[in-house]
């Protein structure tokens, strides 16, 4: 088995710059591309429909499934001349990062761009681990037609790359109205053209409660990062969101209910393996669906069924809280230009050597023998969640602890840019966010930061 790729494009890139113009034109009958992304190598996930490719979304529920059509994002990327190099191993339905290799294609330069379904923060955590940039766009900007996920109201097609410029150009192509995705709102895509950022005029907010749950070492890293921003002339403003801890609750309740509903389609009728030996139709469902889902997703679906069928009130309560959190977040983002959030433990645990070599301040960054970082190490006994990290999604609780710093944006639909650590800039990895549709400005901010990182303080 290929260690990174679940499927490699059988048509190799031809001509200069990998753009398989002719191969695509003849092989797939696509119109000639407009060349805007010519030369760009794009890796996707097994949950992205590419016509003729195996597309199992990392789940036995779709084992052997071969896509009949291109996802809208794929069709647009091809139309702009990008070359699809393959799909990367991913977690079941792209939920979490367990068992996948998300980020590796970009980190090892097999691809310029990776498309990553961001349901709970996957793109940002993977970017952190790979030491690359990642942008989760505003919810509703990118068509979800042809993307297979579990949580329709929260999942977004995010973009990983070593280059913010490539992310910008990719977003220009894949965002915007799509007649095939009826859930897209009638909104104008943000302005992605580059714009100047004057740190002296920019205020960046920091939510106190978002740091509360951080392990001590990460807290220190984050404060060091903020200090680096201040040194560059940005104004920092402390803010408060007392309900911050409820993001996880809302995500878990709403996410599981939507997942339970969305996974109803995996019934072994139109696709997916059918378990043998069913005597009737109900048994066919029970047996096939018993085999379709891994234990982690299965427990999520059963939890969703519990809220749907036995505690529907809890689902409605969670949606009420969601409304409040969205409102509060809007209020906070209206008072500053951007918000900064901790950059997730980029702790290179489990990442092959070279992952995050440059992260300052030891702490969680060193590889441990077991490949699991010694979280909550000396100085912070019992403070940190003891959940296992990468590669060991043992429980729902563990996954929700793993993504505790990222999932807020899936609940609110805000865009988030992850910038990797900058040894030169004295900064750890950091998440930057703004109001919905601030994607373009976020990229501009990111470019400005990377630029000053390069120059040094």
């Amino acid at each position, binding site marked *: 088995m290929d260690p990174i790729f679940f499927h490699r494009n059988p048509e190799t890139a031809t001509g200069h710059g990998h753009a398989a113009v002719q191969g695509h034109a003849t092989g797939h009958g696509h119109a000639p591309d407009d060349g805007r992304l010519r030369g760009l190598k794009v890796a996707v996930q097994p949950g992205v429909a590419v016509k003729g490719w195996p597309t199992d979304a990392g789940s036995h529920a779709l084992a052997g*499934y*071969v896509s*009949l059509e291109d996802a809208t994002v794929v069709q647009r990327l091809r139309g702009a001349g990008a070359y699809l190099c393959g799909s990367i191993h991913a977690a079941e339905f792209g939920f979490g990062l367990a068992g996948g290799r998300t980020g590796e294609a970009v980190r090892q330069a097999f691809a310029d761009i990776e498309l990553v379904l961001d349901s709970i923060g996957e793109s940002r955590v993977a970017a952190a681990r790979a030491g690359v940039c990642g942008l989760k766009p505003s*919810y*509703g900007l990118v068509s979800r037609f042809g993307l297979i996920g579990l949580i329709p*109201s929260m999942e977004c097609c995010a973009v990983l790359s070593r280059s913010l410029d490539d992310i910008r150009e990719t977003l220009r192509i894949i965002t915007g109205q799509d*007649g095939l995705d009826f*859930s*897209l709102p*009638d*909104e104008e895509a943000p302005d992605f053209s580059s714009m100047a950022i004057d740190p002296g005029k920019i205020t960046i907010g920091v939510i106190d409660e978002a740091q509360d749950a951080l392990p001590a070492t990460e807290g220190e890293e984050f404060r060091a990062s903020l200090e680096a921003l201040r040194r560059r002339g940005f104004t920092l403003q402390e803010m408060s969101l007392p309900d911050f801890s*409820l993001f996880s*609750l809302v995500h878990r309740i709403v996410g599981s209910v939507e997942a*339970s509903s969305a996974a109803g389609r995996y019934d072994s*009728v*139109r*696709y*997916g*393996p*059918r378990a043998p030996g*069913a*005597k*009737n*139709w109900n*048994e066919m469902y*029970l*047996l096939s*669906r*018993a085999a*379709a*889902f891994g*234990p982690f997703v*299965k*427990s*999520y679906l*059963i*939890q969703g*069924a*519990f*809220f749907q*069928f*036995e*505690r529907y009130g*809890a689902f*409605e*309560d*969670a*949606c*009420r*809280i*969601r*409304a*409040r959190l*969205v*409102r509060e977040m809007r209020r906070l983002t209206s008072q500053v230009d951007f918000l900064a959030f901790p950059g997730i433990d980029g702790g290179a645990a489990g990442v092959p050597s070279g992952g995050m070599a440059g992260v300052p301040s030891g702490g969680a960054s060193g590889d441990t023998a077991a490949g699991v970082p010694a979280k909550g190490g000396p100085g912070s006994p019992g403070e940190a969640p003891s959940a296992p990290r990468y590669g060991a999604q043992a*429980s*729902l609780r563990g996954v929700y602890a793993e993504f505790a710093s990222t999932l807020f944006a899936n*609940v*609110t639909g805000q865009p988030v840019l992850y910038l990797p650590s900058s040894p030169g800039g004295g900064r750890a990895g950091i998440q930057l966010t703004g109001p*919905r549709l601030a994607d373009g400005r976020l990229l501009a901010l990111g470019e400005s930061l990377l630029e000053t990182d390069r120059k040094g303080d």
Partner: protein
Amino acid sequence: MRFSERVFCGRLTSDDVGRRVLLAGWVDAFRDHGGLIFVHLRDRSGIVQIVFSPETASCEVCQRAASLRSEYCVAVKGEVRNRLPGTENPGIETGTIEVMTTELIVLSESDTLPFAVSEKAMVAGAASGEADHVSEDLRLQYRYLDIRRPSMRDNLTSRHRIFQTVRQFLDSRGFVEIETPALTMSTPEGARDYLVPSRLHPRSFYALPQSPQLFKQLLMIGGIERYFQLARCFRDEDLRPNRQPEFTQLDIEASFIDEESLYELTEELVVKMFAVGGISPARPFPRMTYAQAMDTTGSDRPDLRFGLRLVDVTDVFTETGYAIFRQVLEQGGRIKGLNLKGQSDRLSKNVLQNEYAKEIAPSFGAKGMTWMRAGNGRLESNIVQFFSSRELDRLRSRFAVDDGDVLIMVADPSPEVVTSALGQLRLHLAKRLDLIPDDAFCPVWITDFPLFEPTEQGGVTSSHHPFTAPDRTDFDPADVEELLTLRSRAYDLVVNGEELGGGSIRISDRGLQRKIFTALGLTDEEVNERFGFFLRAFDFGPPPHGGLALGMDRTVSMILRTPSIREVIAFPKNRSAVCPLTGAPTPVKREQLAELGLLDLGSREVLPGAAEKEDRIDRLSWLSRIGIAAEERAVMAETLKQAEELALIAAGSAGEDEPMYTVVPLANRMRPGTVERRCELSRTGDLLKNAPSVKNGYFKVAGILE
């Protein structure tokens, strides 16, 4: 107005012209001709047109008439008159007259109807309303409106008429109508019982009767001699299109009788019942033994409205060179066939080979099907070259083949498979080739059923029930071979391939009864436990007796030619055994269950609370149709425990906001285009490419039922 003066709409005739009448009923249909208002007034008897005209009615009455709507319940007074020439409506019985209304009382108004009740057009030649396109569940949900439709009303009144015929006839023959209990003990009828918990005797149950079998025999022992009952029976069986959980059967039992007198009685009764529907089956009804029916039609309820008899041709092929037939014969198998006279134009090679031989015959259990078409004095087929001319000649004479005929044959090592597959092919072909005449009614008695059937364990079981008398009494109850040769004194009445009823002469000798139980392998203890109270009665001079039961819903449905038995039942269950009108069956309150001692049935050994948690995982597993393995249960239990905690926190933090289901502004979407089109992936068949199982261009799924 005084309702005692009321006359029926449908009874008015031209003799009533000039008479002032009081009518009451429902507005069936309504036309407003600007000032002149016509209404079809409907009551149970029929429809008459009433007219509101400014010339005969006051302004105020005309105004109120203008506000009438369908199914308003009204009373009117007016004068009967002849319609103007050219305005008669031959679609209704009172179509030559109308009533000029002078008074109107709206007794009650009606909401907008869920479906049209009216079935009669107001103008001759116009289309009339039909309920055919209304979903049956909607009709059942508003059954009281459905029953207002004349066709349903006619069905129910005809049912009444048939029931009255039964009562009058049986009364005239000295039969006494006696009711037997509905709360009773489980009887050995073979289907599942509906159970009724007893509050006074916790953990004990009554069963609703599957038939009054034991009681009617006890009535014979009680000296009633001739009994009948239109009995409601209950069977908790798997769903089938034409089956109801509760049904009505005409139950008859008589003493000092034999088969002949029962045939005579039943035939006379059936002829009178069918006469209500204008049908007169010829008497005496033909009879066939079970063996004859199976041999010639492949069914124990043969449809005799058409020919197509099965012919055994095993002997034609004893020395055949055709490998498939030879192998079948070497294994002791049989070869039988049918001659479809003159059908070769309608059964092409393609249809015979690709539809019947490859798809249809295998679906009836046959491994294959051989066909031959006769033309130009020869038999043609894809395999005819494997047969000798002697074999072909013998086939021609055995089937009396003429040009244009089509022969089909099935060969199988199991004679039962041959018979059953050909029997089903016979029906399939008859329907496809329109060989079944519309208005034929062909009753037949099927007799001489085997008394026993073999069990897999090498013993025997009753084909009917263990109280059915055998054709002889001198058998050895230990000799299974001999037991399987016994015939029963049972009989079925079959009409047009449907079993309307059946019965038997019962065992009235306790020694013989004991012998039957011995043959069935039942010990004395088992017999006593199951039938003790019943057998005890046979110790006190039981008379020889026998009887029969007729399924009344099915019989009435056949007489009235309705597409389903639900059309002749006032408030039936639907195909899912649910009553859409009342919603039954429904869950009941915990208090009710507690009162009946049903709360912890079957879970007494389990620790308190544990069972409920187990149940919850099972319930969620079932609701979401996701099987959960034993080793996964611990994780699920932990997940649900956490979910409970989450629910608590959510409740405590919910606040007052309206729930938010999406973070983006909602947008209404119309799919572009107005012309329906077929999905390209469907047209090319690609849509089926990822399906685990496909048949004939459809996704194939497991059967809904086992």
